[in-house]
């Protein structure tokens, strides 16, 4: 039973030698505008093969948007995204998978959700059955296989979403705040699945607001602020000795309201 193990938090990440240091996914000069507002402005990112990269920053910084662009769900107005030096195409996207903040599960059983994803990838018969069994075991959902996916708890639903994505054997897994609103046990379960996948060589790109999670999972960090990369580097450097003001404010637990904005304390002094 995996459930007992899920009560243990994931171990803090230790520096390790990556399989290969070359970038798996690169984006240069990404610009995305909507309703006349520039939501991403000249974003450059590089995701190393086999790494665990965290995308951090406040609400509205453009983290989820960046993930959708990198996954090819939406197209940037400017800039280019390359996958191992090649343009990002629909075929390339088959080598990626994504888990959304609110798991999108079909109105079917747990088993049927897994079966559907694998069928889309062209798997049939015994190979598909084996992968389904493995996924159910990894998520600790064997006993709930025939239950409608939407009656599972929030943590179980997110575990299902993660193993469904991993069952498709992606080279890169995007996770958009997968543990938001989950309790510590469910968070630990998700982190365990992520770490196990990464140990098998799956590159991880994960959006999080959780500093503790960043320390546990992060190897590289991209810190976004107002649609631009405020800072990027190793997790150790960005989380412990941040150089940019937004990341320093995050580290210190201060409210960062932008370079031209008064702090709350200043605002209070002026008002009262």
């Amino acid at each position, binding site marked *: 039973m995996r459930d007992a193990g899920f009560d243990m938090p994931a171990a803090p990440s230790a520096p390790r030698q990556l399989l290969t240091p070359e970038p798996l996914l690169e984006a240069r000069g990404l610009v995305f505008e909507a309703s006349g507002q520039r939501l991403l402005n000249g974003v450059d990112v590089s995701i190393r093969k086999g790494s665990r990269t965290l995308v951090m920053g406040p609400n509205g910084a453009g983290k989820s948007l960046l993930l*959708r662009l990198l*996954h090819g*769900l939406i197209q940037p107005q400017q800039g280019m995204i390359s996958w191992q030096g090649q343009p990002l195409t*629909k075929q390339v*996207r*088959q080598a*990626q*998978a*994504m888990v*959304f903040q609110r798991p*999108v599960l*079909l*109105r*079917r059983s747990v088993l049927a959700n897994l079966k*559907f*994803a694998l069928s*889309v*990838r062209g798997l049939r018969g015994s190979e598909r059955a084996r992968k389904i069994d493995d996924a159910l075991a990894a998520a600790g959902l064997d006993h709930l296989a025939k239950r*409608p996916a*939407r*009656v599972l708890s929030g943590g179980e639903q997110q575990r299902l979403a993660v193993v469904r994505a991993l069952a*498709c054997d992606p080279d890169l897994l995007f996770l958009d705040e997968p543990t938001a609103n989950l309790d510590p046990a469910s968070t630990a379960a998700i982190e365990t699945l992520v770490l196990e996948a990464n140990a098998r060589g799956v590159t991880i790109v994960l959006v999080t607001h959780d500093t503790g999670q960043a320390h546990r999972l992060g190897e590289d960090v991209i810190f976004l602020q107002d649609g631009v990369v405020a800072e990027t580097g190793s997790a150790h450097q960005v989380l412990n000795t941040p150089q940019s003001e937004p990341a320093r404010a995050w580290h210190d637990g201060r409210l960062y309201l932008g370079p031209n904005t008064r702090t709350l304390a200043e605002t209070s002094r002026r008002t009262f």
Partner: protein
Amino acid sequence: MDGFWSVLGGAFALVFALDPDLLEIIGLSMRVTLTAVFFACLIGLPLGAAVGVFRFPGRTLLTVALNALMGLPPVVVGLVVYLMLSASGPFGPLRLLYTPSAMIIAQMIIVTPIVAALTRQVVEDLNREYAEQFASLGVGALDRLLSLLWDARYSLLTVALAGFGRAVAEVGAVLIVGGNINHVTRVMTTTIALETSKGNLQLALALGVVLLAIAFTVTACVMALKASAVRAAYA
């Protein structure tokens, strides 16, 4: 008032006596309506789903047309089908006029836009929820359409029910293309109209009671099915 109760009593007597004429009319009504709804669903469900999911030139116009055709006047449909199937019409040689097939065609034309328009709305809403996940998984166009239809199946039962309700209560079009011929094309609604005009209120009322009972039973069954699905959190 006594007259009303005696007519109502006579109507129930006919129903409970399982009058052969009454059964024949009910049977034909059900055959025509269910066949028409079946074919309307066969066309309307995928059509509505396709309009709800895919983006193509003229999509907005098609959506407006489908919504507008929900209010298609049955007598106009009856007239058009009559002209098409009459001896001088393009489908005259098929000799379908004044047959149950003509009535099925007319009802199908009336019901298909209803099914398609309501399906479009249901599937479009569901697609909004699934779209990114489907794109992420790389789901193809046909798989996407079939998956959305399958996952919306309980909501689509209500859509089919709306089509059934419209078809079973329809009188204008089937009267024109069916002719209300005894033992051939006489259905419940046309019989009610005819028998009322003849003063045979017992049979008319008996058919009215049966019509209401059928509508009530079908609605109750569909609602029960949907409720059980909601309990199972599929919907």
